[in-house]
């Protein structure tokens, strides 16, 4: 969309009512974009040119309003010392946690961070005038859990909280630095914190171990002079208000009733979401369109219509189109 950037800015500002048709972004990331472009995932996540090309290809093909540079959840963990194995056409796998060896990384040099940053730089050059280039930034809680190994980290929360906090601080430092680099090249850091899900940890643990570090990270991103977003997977009914406390401008939510989400966060907060990924994968296009309309009805005007989580690799192209069309053909009834 030629005016995507302007439209997103309007949704974030006081003129959200005037944005027609509504802003839409099926969360298309490397794996789906690679598939649609007929490219192998392993190439897309190791080669900046391929990554930028497949993401640009999907953006043009579907005509949505944002681009998200997201390779996989382990980019930062790998750069900080975790061992990651990259299959041929599957998302990378955590082979060995970094543990005590974890260190703050250099985004210009370590792991595949340079690949992601270079892809973002190319996209900014290619389309940055018309569309915001979001770059995925792992939330400190998720990153710390990868650094320790997820199970060990979750045990630390109860048994050795100071140890958990040590890794959380390390992860936060790393992400502040990474966010600075993302902003420097013209991207918008967009936080994703899948492990901080309400399906994994309690409200109390979220409040103590996820929230403070998210707040610190968002503060730092604001200091760099840009807005940001926060996506948390799974059931966040009990923590959605705390997500708002982080001050992230966009709250991206997984599958939950949109009317409930709207009530919880109030009328002024921008919500991104939340058409079921399962439906995108197995439903019919017509069902996807109806689900999209339901979100619009309950969430507008401060809404970016999106999938509940990233678009599943096997979702039919027609279903992604149907999600975009739900917004494009929205007539407000």
């Amino acid at each position, binding site marked *: 969309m030629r005016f995507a950037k302007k439209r997103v800015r309007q949704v974030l500002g006081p003129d959200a009512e005037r944005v027609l048709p509504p802003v839409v972004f099926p969360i298309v990331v490397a*794996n789906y974009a690679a598939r649609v472009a007929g490219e192998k995932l392993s190439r897309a996540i190791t080669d900046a040119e391929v990554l930028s090309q497949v993401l640009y290809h999907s953006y043009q093909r579907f005509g949505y309003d944002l681009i998200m540079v997201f390779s996989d959840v382990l980019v930062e963990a790998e750069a900080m010392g975790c061992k990651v194995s990259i*299959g041929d056409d*599957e*998302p990378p*796998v*955590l082979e060995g946690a970094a543990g005590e060896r974890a260190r703050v990384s250099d985004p210009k040099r370590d792991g595949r961070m340079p690949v992601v940053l270079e892809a973002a730089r190319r996209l900014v050059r290619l389309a940055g005038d018309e569309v915001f280039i979001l770059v995925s930034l792992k939330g400190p809680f998720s990153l710390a859990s990868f650094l320790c190994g*997820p*199970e060990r980290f*979750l*045990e630390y*929360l*109860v*048994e050795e909280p100071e140890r958990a906090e040590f890794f959380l601080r390390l992860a936060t430092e790393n992400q502040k630095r990474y966010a600075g680099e993302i902003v420097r090249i013209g991207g918008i850091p967009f936080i994703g914190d899948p492990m901080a899900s309400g*399906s*994994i*940890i*309690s409200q109390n*643990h979220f409040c103590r171990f996820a929230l403070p570090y998210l707040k610190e990270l968002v503060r730092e991103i604001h200091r760099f002079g840009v807005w940001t977003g926060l996506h948390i997977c*799974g059931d966040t009914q009990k923590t959605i208000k705390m997500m708002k406390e982080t001050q992230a401008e966009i709250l991206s939510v997984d599958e939950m009733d949109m009317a409930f989400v709207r009530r919880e966060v109030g009328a002024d907060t921008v919500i991104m979401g939340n058409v079921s*990924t*399962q439906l995108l*994968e*197995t439903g019919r296009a017509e069902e996807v369109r109806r689900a999209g309309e339901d979100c619009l009805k309950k969430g507008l005007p401060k809404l970016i219509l999106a999938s509940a989580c990233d678009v*599943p*690799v*096997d979702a039919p192209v027609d279903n992604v189109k149907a999600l975009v069309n739900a917004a494009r053909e929205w007539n407000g009834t």
Partner: protein
Amino acid sequence: MDSEKDLFALMQEAVLNLKPKEVVVLCEEAIKRGVPADEALEKGLAKGMRLVGERFAAKVYFVPEVLLAAKAMYAGFDVLKEHLPKKAKRRGRVALGVVQGDIHDIGKNIVKVMAEAEGFEVIDLGRNVPIEQFVNAVKDGVQVLGMSALMTTTMGNMARVIEALKRAGLRERVKIAVGGAPVNRVFAERIGADGYAPDAASAVGEIRRLIG
């Protein structure tokens, strides 16, 4: 601690309160008093773990609490195990694994703990398990094969395992249960699984149902 019954209640409570050291002390006490180890396991530790499962299902407990309760239970199990009757009656043999490409095994590990607490023999195939390894587990003889995936990108591998079992002529030998966040009943039926559980807490009930 007047009676065995109280001792079992304390064991349950110690598991529920995530206290491995207390569990160990109580199990040692049980052995000293001549309480049969299998009874302590069943009425104390396993019952405690079932209560943990209930709290998990009710969203009072979350994954960290379940992991630590499991740790407490295993600490007690280590004390009891050498005192268990040599041929403890097992309810059945179950193989569990997370499909290839997927490293999210917390759910699978919780199912494993719950299943063991219920007296099933569990073969843990681990995570990122190749198709052939599932097939081999069935060859070695299990009544139930449980597969999980936490990513939409990998759940398709469940169907591939079932196909491979058919090709090897092994499909009828085993009941197949699937689960994991992106999986639902419709998907389970479509790929031809026999059972499905929406979460780790209900998985053991499903395994029990399949074994019949």
